[in-house]
């Protein structure tokens, strides 16, 4: 029974994530004065990709890569409370479990893409990993004061410890919140940190050798990833929300990143990393100092 529930849950979140992707295309199109495809277009794309018959594979790891990627993100989702809504495994919803499970996806993709012997893919991965030295550490440092303040490492308890509107962590820790927003832009891989895919430079990087069902798996990985990443952010900073408000929150955060994405150019990789080691790092350190002063 619970396993069935878990499949449905995953399916639902995947579809919502795909709709977010469609919405992003629509928004970007509107900003650029175009019409854009319908919002449900990514769902159709994925179905089409899964139906494709002759897909090139470069070997066993190349095939398994997308599978592992989706495994990682799906497992993360199950440990992540969606606002007030608690999934099966909320009692294990520890920040570090989530953070480390979150890495499984990129690792799987990286392993798969690596086997393809295409330099574009490998360069993309090298960039992706290097970028982690930038945004991941900022994201972590931005959330640390919150966890420290509420004296727990459990995401669920952090959510419950916050109250209604003015009692949000985002209000209590505005500096960390801003630093977190910077990090989120990189976490989502949107411009100006869109170096990993960079279609004009390295031909969509890790995805370059993927087609058919592999690309389909990577698409749904990305879809769930959007929900998990923005959801983590909303959980930590916006307190307890009902499931609807939770999705609204994630969409608002997502919307903000998409807008920034639409108007920004792309950094070079070392610029991107250095950018994170500048202002965002300073902000996150200030956020940590703030929680120290509060105590």
């Amino acid at each position, binding site marked *: 029974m619970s396993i069935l529930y878990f499949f449905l849950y995953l399916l639902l979140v995947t579809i919502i994530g795909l709709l977010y992707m469609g919405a992003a295309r629509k928004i970007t199109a509107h900003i650029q004065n175009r019409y854009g495809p319908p919002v449900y277009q990514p769902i159709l794309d994925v179905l089409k990709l899964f139906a494709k018959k002759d897909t090139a594979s470069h070997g066993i790891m190349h095939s398994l890569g997308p599978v592992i990627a989706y495994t990682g993100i*799906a497992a993360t989702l199950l440990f992540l409370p969606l606002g007030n809504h608690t999934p099966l495994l909320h*009692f294990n919803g520890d920040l570090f*479990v989530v953070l*480390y499970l979150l890495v499984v996806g990129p690792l799987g993709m990286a392993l798969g893409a690596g*086997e*393809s012997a295409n330099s574009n893919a490998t360069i993309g991965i090298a960039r992706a990993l290097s970028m982690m030295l930038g945004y991941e550490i900022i994201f972590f440092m931005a959330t640390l004061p919150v966890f420290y303040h509420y004296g727990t490492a459990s995401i669920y308890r952090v959510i419950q410890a916050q109250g209604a509107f003015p009692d949000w962590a985002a209000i209590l820790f505005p500096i960390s919140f801003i630093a977190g927003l910077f990090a989120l832009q990189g976490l989502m891989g949107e411009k100006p940190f869109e170096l990993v895919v960079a279609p004009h430079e390295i031909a969509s990087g890790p995805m370059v050798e993927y087609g058919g*069902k592999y690309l389909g*798996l990577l698409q749904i990985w990305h879809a769930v990833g959007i929900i998990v990443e923005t959801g983590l952010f909303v959980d930590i900073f916006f307190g307890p929300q009902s499931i609807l408000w939770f999705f609204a929150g994630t969409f608002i955060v997502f919307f903000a990143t998409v807008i920034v994405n639409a108007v920004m150019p792309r950094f070079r990789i070392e610029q991107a990393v250095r950018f994170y080691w500048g202002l965002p790092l300073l902000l*996150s350190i200030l956020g940590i100092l703030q929680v120290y002063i509060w105590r």
Partner: protein
Amino acid sequence: MAMFYLLLLLVLVGIVSFVLGPIKVLRNIIAFLGAVTAFFYFLTNIKPGLIYSLNIRVYNVHFEAGFSSMFFGVIITALFIIFLIASFHEENDGAYYLFAYLTLTGALAVLFAKDLISFFFFFETMSLFSFLMVLKGKSDTSFRSAFKYLVWSVFGGYAFLMGTFLKVYYTHSVMIGDISYLAGGVKLLILILLLAPFAVKAALMPFHLWAPDAYKDSKDTFTVFFSGGLSKIGVFGYFLVLFKVFTEIAVKYPYFLKAFAWLGAITAALSGIYAFMQDDAKKLLAYSSISQLGYVAVGFGIYTHFSVVAALFHALGHAVFESLLFLVVAGVYYRTKTTDLRKMGGLIKRMPLSFIGLLFGIIATSGIPPTIGFPSKWLLYEALILKGDLLLTSLVFFASITAFLYSYKLVHGIFLGKLHEEHKNVKEAPLGYAFGTVVLLVPLLVLGIIPGLVIKPIDYIVRFYLKPELGYNLANMNTPLGHVNFPVVGLVMGLTFALSLFIYLIAGKSYRAEQTDNYTATEAIDEDFELHYAGEFYGFMKKAFGRPLTWSFEKILNAFLKLFSFLGEVARGFYMGDARVYLFYVIAFFALLAYLMGGKL
């Protein structure tokens, strides 16, 4: 008596293997049986609390087996067997095994030693013979590395000896015992001096300078034991000094512990950065090993019950995954005769078992569940946040991220990417390597899913000294901050993997593409086209780091050495003259004495 018999057995097996040197098969059998016997003898006969003192007339050598020595002894002996089996594939002479066995003897005796002088004796024994092992390394540069290693370990040993003498001078006891009651700063001095050799062995910055070279240039199979096993002596020493020698350190010198933790975190972070800048697999792993041992130091520096449990668990994890990685790289070297990441690639198709070993090795190194690397990292973070040092936590997290970078570089450089023409006919690593790989994979996964199996003995080691705060059973771990059920994490990953695989399987079919069947923006490629992007993998990070990357401890050390050279030149200057100058010395000397004693004559 059992401890003495064990050590004696090891020495005898070493000597027999030396004598049997040229008769390879027999020698290998003896060496192997000796190690296995020692391992089971250790497991069955040596119990915590066992005391033995060996009177060699001029000195009483005291031995005592404690929980900690049991814990590390099992790790070290087990890794020794794995090293031994793999080493039979290499060209080694009898002396190599003699030195290996004496190294092991020294290491185990260090674990058992109860008084400081014996401790020093066995520590130096271990250093000396492991130096000889490195000296018997594989390349011409191994001499330089071995020399460096010798000087560093002896430096540590002498610092320890100085600390020993200070301790004996002030406490009138040579036994390993508490010095907390001593007045003044001398106990801090003793503490630092006693910690030095372990900082060297566990390659804590700035005492790590020997490690990358020594790990790189020692024979590949020995590095398995060297990095995984011998570095544990350093961790054991941390435990020994911080808990048995100075029990009240947390009360008296909390800032020392803080500095120690920061040093560990800096080690972890900087070595991580150095690691992903390396193009040589063994050097990369060497830095990774140093980096991982940095976490252990952090755990000790935080000095709470579960941080120390985390540190010891991580030490075990380090023994498992770092040995596994070195073993796989040794197997790859055996087949390809290179450890240069730029010259390999695509070996996944030729050495699948090695690939699986390395893959799980790097997953554990990165701390990703459900492997042995995860529980310790999780515990460590919980301890860090509870302690409230958020900047330190961030630095440790930074170090963890570097692990992803160098891990991927390693696996990509060797196994992914394009298979080179000269490696088209490479076979899977031979049986000895494969055996070790498979054996190490078992604890790597089992202890990642059910960490409770070893948390219990580790807790026994720690709870005697620190108030137990960690709740645990076979599956769960509870800290004041959070709770994890490790089997559930593993189970969820398994289920989601099954689901993903299901999606993969019901979707359309795929075909196997050639290596050259790649998107290259219309450029025509053939077999010779260089597709393997491995050198300067993170080259752009040099720009990101900028100047600070060129700073190094080596420069400080070199300045120090220059000072000594200068002093040496001055000293030599006294002896440069001819006989007249020397005569002048004699006369001047007496003139000086006459002047100084003028009043008395």
